[in-house]
Structure formats: C-alpha cells, structure tokens
C-alpha cells in the first residue's frame, strides 16, 4: 500500500512559538485546480497585538547584541535555509511556481540573507559621522534601530518578498511583526521554522498569516509600533495606514516588490530606513599643553 503522507499544519509564529490563531479562524489555500492545499491561520487583531508584545519584549535584547553577533545569526538563518532548500522549492511549486523559477527564488532568497548578514556590522560605519562642530565639543552621529516594525508583504512572491522585508529590518537591530503574503503564505510558515532553529531569539521576527484587507488598519494604529513597511499595491490601504500612522508619528515606508530578484533590492539604504540618527555631544576641555605643532 502506498504510504500516506503526513500533512503539515500551518500556524503562526509569535514570540518563538507556533500558536494557532486565537480567533480559531482559517482560510483555505487552493491550488490552480481549486483543491485545498492547506488551511491557513487567519490571524486576528489580537494575534497581532500579541506579536507586538513579543516584538517589543525582544527589542532590548536583540538591539543590544553585538552587531557582529547579529551578523552571525543572520548567516545562520541562511545556513538553515540552505538545508531546507528543497522544501521551499516544493512549496513554491505547489503554489504554482515553475521549478526553474522556484529554484531561482530560493537561491536568491538565501543569498539575500547572506548579503544582509554582512551588513550587520558595517552599515554603521558607512552612515555614522564625526561632525566638525565650531565649538569645543566632540560630536558624533550614529544610527540606532527604531524599535518595533510592522510590515505587510505583497502578493508577488512567497519567500523572496518576505526575506527582502525581514532581513534589512532585523540586520539593523529592530524587531518585526510581518504579515506574510496572503496569496502565497506557505513559505512564510516554513521560514518561521527556519528561524526557530537559527539562534534567533524568540520575538525578533513574528510571522502572521491572514488578510491585509482585514488587519492593515490595526497594524497601523497600534501605539507601541515605531514604523510601518507596506509592500502591497492597494492605494486605499496605503492611504489608510499612512493616516493611522500619524496617531503616534510612525515612520511609513511603501516599497515596490517589482523585480524582487534584482540586485537593486540589496542595499544598505533599506537598513537605514529603519534607523534613527542619534547625535551625542561632549565638551573637550582645553587643559593646556600639546600645541599641535609637534
């Protein structure tokens, strides 16, 4: 007799755990023949709020890890992805992607993670400054992470879009709650399993599945979120989240998912979008001596 396949339950990823949605709701994911591939958790506002609590709780620890260590952890994520390459390819294929495109997407995703891993302890040097002020002070400016970022994926990919959102945000020391692609959610859940085995502290990345149309306004109005990243193309949703962001002066970024496979999606400015610049002053005392003409 042919072996019966063990099917996977697709759940949310919050605070390093895999809970079902507290709402108990789901939406069926269908393939092109209208057959059910999986029942996807339909995350609620409450799930989102729980995820923000987890992300805020993880922010202090993640942002104060050494930059070098963050780089190692991102690299470890890439290593774990490499090990699951075939699983990602299979999942992309059941979601209707051709094999060659699926392979390319997975490879690009892994390479993109390695790319941002490398930036973790380098972008600060490119974007810091020692400022030549006209008074007797030492004055310098450095980037610091903004805090908790909420993000909404577009529907142009299952894996690469998600990686392109998460990697630059966490490389800079932020924590994130991200809504995976509504149309192609499978890789998001599998990627969460990668994260869970990658030395990434729980709560740094939280992945929800569900409907942007239902949850985007809640994501934008939450008062303990510092910034929003929107990668969809719904103009009404963009307007709504931009308006609600004003409640606590959230920073809002809208990014296109066009040509996701191209190198233009790999740059340190995507990290800098989610950095604050902090400037520190300290007096220099002229204590005499050291005339400077030595």
């Amino acid at each position, binding site marked *: 007799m042919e072996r019966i396949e063990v099917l996977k339950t697709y759940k949310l990823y919050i605070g390093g755990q895999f809970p079902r949605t507290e709402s108990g709701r789901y939406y069926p994911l269908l393939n092109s023949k209208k057959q059910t591939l999986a029942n996807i958790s339909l995350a609620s506002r409450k799930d989102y709020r729980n995820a923000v609590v987890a992300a805020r709780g993880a922010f202090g620890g993640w942002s104060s890890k050494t930059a070098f260590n963050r780089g190692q952890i991102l690299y470890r994520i890439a290593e774990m992805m490499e090990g699951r390459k075939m699983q990602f390819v299979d999942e992309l294929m059941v979601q209707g992607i051709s094999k060659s495109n699926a392979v390319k997407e997975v490879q690009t995703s892994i390479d993109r993670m390695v790319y941002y891993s490398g930036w973790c302890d380098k972008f600060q040097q490119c974007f810091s400054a020692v400022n030549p002020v006209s008074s007797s002070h030492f004055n310098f400016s450095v980037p610091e992470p903004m805090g908790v970022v909420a993000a909404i994926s577009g529907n142009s990919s299952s894996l690469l879009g998600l990686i392109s959102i998460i990697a630059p945000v966490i490389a800079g020391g932020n924590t994130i709650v991200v809504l995976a692609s509504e149309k192609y959610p499978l890789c998001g859940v599998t990627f969460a399993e990668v994260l869970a085995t990658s030395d990434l502290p729980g709560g740094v990345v939280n992945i929800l599945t569900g409907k942007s149309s239902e949850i985007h306004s809640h994501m934008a109005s939450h008062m303990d979120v510092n910034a929003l990243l929107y990668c969809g193309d719904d103009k009404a949703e963009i307007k709504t989240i931009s308006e609600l962001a004003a409640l606590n*002066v959230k920073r809002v970024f809208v990014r296109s998912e066009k040509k996701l496979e191209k190198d233009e999606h790999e740059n340190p400015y995507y990290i800098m979008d989610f950095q*604050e610049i902090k400037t520190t002053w300290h007096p220099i005392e002229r204590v005499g001596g050291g005339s400077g003409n030595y």
Partner: protein
Amino acid sequence: MNQKENRISKTEKKLENVSKTVFKDWKYAPSPESTEHVKIAPRYDLFINGKFVKPESKKYFDTVSPSTEKKLSEIAEAGEKDVDKAVSAAKNAYDKTWRKIPAKERAKYIYRIARMIQERAREFAVIETMDGGKPIRESRDIDVPLAANHFFYYAGWADKLDYAFPKTNPRPLGVAGQIIPWNFPLLMAAWKIAPALATGNTVVLKPAESTPLTALKLAELIQDSGLPEGVVNIVTGFGKTGAAIVNHPNVNKVAFTGSTDVGKIIQKAVAGTSKKITLELGGKAANIVFDDAPIDQAVEGIVNGIFFNQGHVCCAGSRLFVQENIAANLIEKLKERMESLIVGDPLDKNTDIGAINSKEQLLKIQEYISIGINEGAEIHQSSCALPNKGFFCKPTLFLNTSQSHRIVTEEIFGPVLAVQTFRTIEEVIEKANNIPYGLSAGVWTDKGSKIFHLTSKMRAGVVWANTYNKFDPASPFGGYKESGFGREGGLHGLSAYLTI
C-alpha cells in the same frame, strides 16, 4: 570633621555671608542695545516670485513686541490664492531655472546669502529680539550667527551630493513647503531654506504669525542677493495659510517644525500622497544628574537647559532627574543661581531671560503652573520683579513631582522645570524613556563609561553629555518617537530634500 576642615568650612560660611550682604544690592546699570539703525517698515507684503506683492486676501495682521506690547508692523495674511501663486512661482522657478543651474553656481548663491546675513547680523539680532522677546545676547551670539553659518555650511554641499549618498544618484524633489515656529524665527528659516536650496529644491516658507519680521527681512536680503525669482517665496499667515501649503498638489515636500499635535495633523493630511515629509516636533527632555557630576557645571547646564530662550525650546531640559543623595545640595545651588538670573528687557545686554513670545503662550505657561500647584508639586520661583509691561514669567521650579504629573509629561514650552529624584541607573533610564517624546536628553557625570552607557540608552535624537543646548550646522538634529522624523543639520540633514 577634623578641626582644620571645620575651620575652613567656617571661613567659607563667613565669606558666603559677606558676599551675600555686599552683593545683594548690586544692580547692573541698564545696557540697552540701540534700535536706531534698524529699519522696520510699517507694513510687509508677501514675498512671491522675487517681489513683495499685496495679498489677494486683502488682509493684514499686527505683529507685536512681546516685551513692550507695542505694534511693530502689519503683515499680510496669505490666503489660498496667495499660497497658490507662491507655489506656482516656486514650481516655475524649479522647472525653468533652479534645476538647470549647475550645482557649483547654486552653491555660490547660497554662500552669498550667508555672507549678507553676516554683514547685517546686528540688524537681524535686534529685530529678532524686538519681535520675539528673546534676549539680545542670545539673538546676537546664537540665533543670527548660527543662521548665517547654516547657509555657509550647506552652500558647500550643493556640488558634492554624490559623495553623501554613494550609488544613489541623488535628485531634488521639487517644491518644498516649509512651516516654521516662533521660537527661533530666523534660525529655523535658515535650517529649512539652506538645505532645500543646496539640494536643488525651491521653497515656499511660512514663518510663525507672531514672529514674521526676520523672515521678511531675509526676503529683502534674498532679493538683494540676486537669487533667481521664485526660488524662495515667503508667505505669512496663520495655521490656515500653513494648511494651504501642506495641501497644495504641487508641493512635493513638506517640512514642519512645531508642536506634536499639529505635526500629527500634517502627517495625516499628506497620507496617501507622494509628498515627502519631515517633522521636528515637541519634546520633554530628561536632564539627568548623577552624584559624581561636577555640581556647579551641572547647575549651569540645568539653567541653560530650561531657561535658555525662556524655555521656548523643543529640546529644553524640562525634566530634571537628580540622584537622591545630592538632591538637597544641588537644588539649593540651583535656587541660588536662579536668583541671579536677570529677567526683563530683552534688548538689554545683561538680560538672561526675556519676554514670553506672546500673550497666548504666557497664559498657557501660567495655566501649567497652576496645574502643577494643584497636582501637589512644590513650587519655587525666583524672587525677581517682572516689568509692568510685556509678557514675562519668573523662572520656575517644581519639586516633588512624579511621572504621572501633567507638568512632567506635557510640553510646557516655558521657563518651568519639573524636578524628580532617582536612586539607580535602571530607575532613571526607565523614567527618562517612559514618555512619547524622544527629541533630546542630558547626562551629567564625571565617569566616561557611565556617560556612554546612558547616552546609548536614551531613546532620543540628540544627547548632550556634560553640556546642554548646543547647536551647530554640522550636527544633525531631530527626534525619535513622537518628536518627529528626519534630521536637520549635517550630512544627515540632506536626505530630507532628496530622492535617493
């Protein structure tokens, strides 16, 4: 205490008493800055397309000196039609001239403006003080030189932008709509206009309704500088005028400095448009003094932190945190120092604290003072006399305040300091950051490692360690959280005006 120390301390006490009695009645002779060479026209029109034009609205409003309550001039109020004219002039100048001028030449115009401000510095300082009430010492030594330096600094960036943002091909945005507050009228105009021009944008600027004069004098100066017509337009008016700028479809960039409440309205108003926005909003900075800090310097820093510019400073150190074991000593010294502050005629060169910017603002401060008293905090004010005319407020301390007090959580924008004590570093970091604002912070300690721990833990855009309220064109300024986003000053201040 051994005998020798005892003797020394007795002698010190004696000397202190002598100085108190001898110097008590010493008064500074009046030393007013002359206003004779200053030219203020009886009426100012709108500066649009290189010319002063009468407002379509046909409306004018008075600008009043807050120290004398006398009318200085009347100012055109720009309506929607006027704003439309100004934006069209800016767009036209952007399309037809400014974007086509080589960056090197653009720089030279900005250098010219810097130089001309330096040449007319004294006139600008006197008018700034007359119109806004700040001490002449501050407008002369801080506001006006910093404004000139800001133009000089950014002028040099115009032809070097590729080095600031590698691999991006930085491009200007178009027309920048800029709205500025009344606390540093000329300086804020410089902070807005200089980087906008250096990056190749054109400008429609609205000064605050209570302090329009130096911006209009700047318009005269810009006319003299030969800057192509329409590159800078200055329209005066109230909030409605500002709203017309923010909502104009041909404005590509909105830069606002002001209150968090208005900032939120603006952020909401531009939502869903392609307008780029930067906000520099309110603050409620923690100024933290540890027991190992140099106390006398810290007291100077506290005074500078809260009483500089009558406390009309978004980054004012309005929440003082003192380590408990030195609190009694420090507060005594602080009270003593407050007694020596001279409050009065802002044109007098000896004045430390000038006039509150407007009657409206004075009423707001007075309301907060009564809120503080009603909340149960202990008030202390300097015993100084206030002038009979004009809007003045005594330097004010509130002791025994707590995190939940409104005078601790809300921005007062006046010479009112809320004092709290703390025991541990953990406690003070928690308290300092537990507020929606994040513009600035101050830390006072002699220990280097402690400084860096504290400065890195403060969720604020500008942190002063063993100093306070220092500004420089090369130094980025701007907030975290609800204090706004974007930076002004330095290399980082360029990106607000560029597509990168």
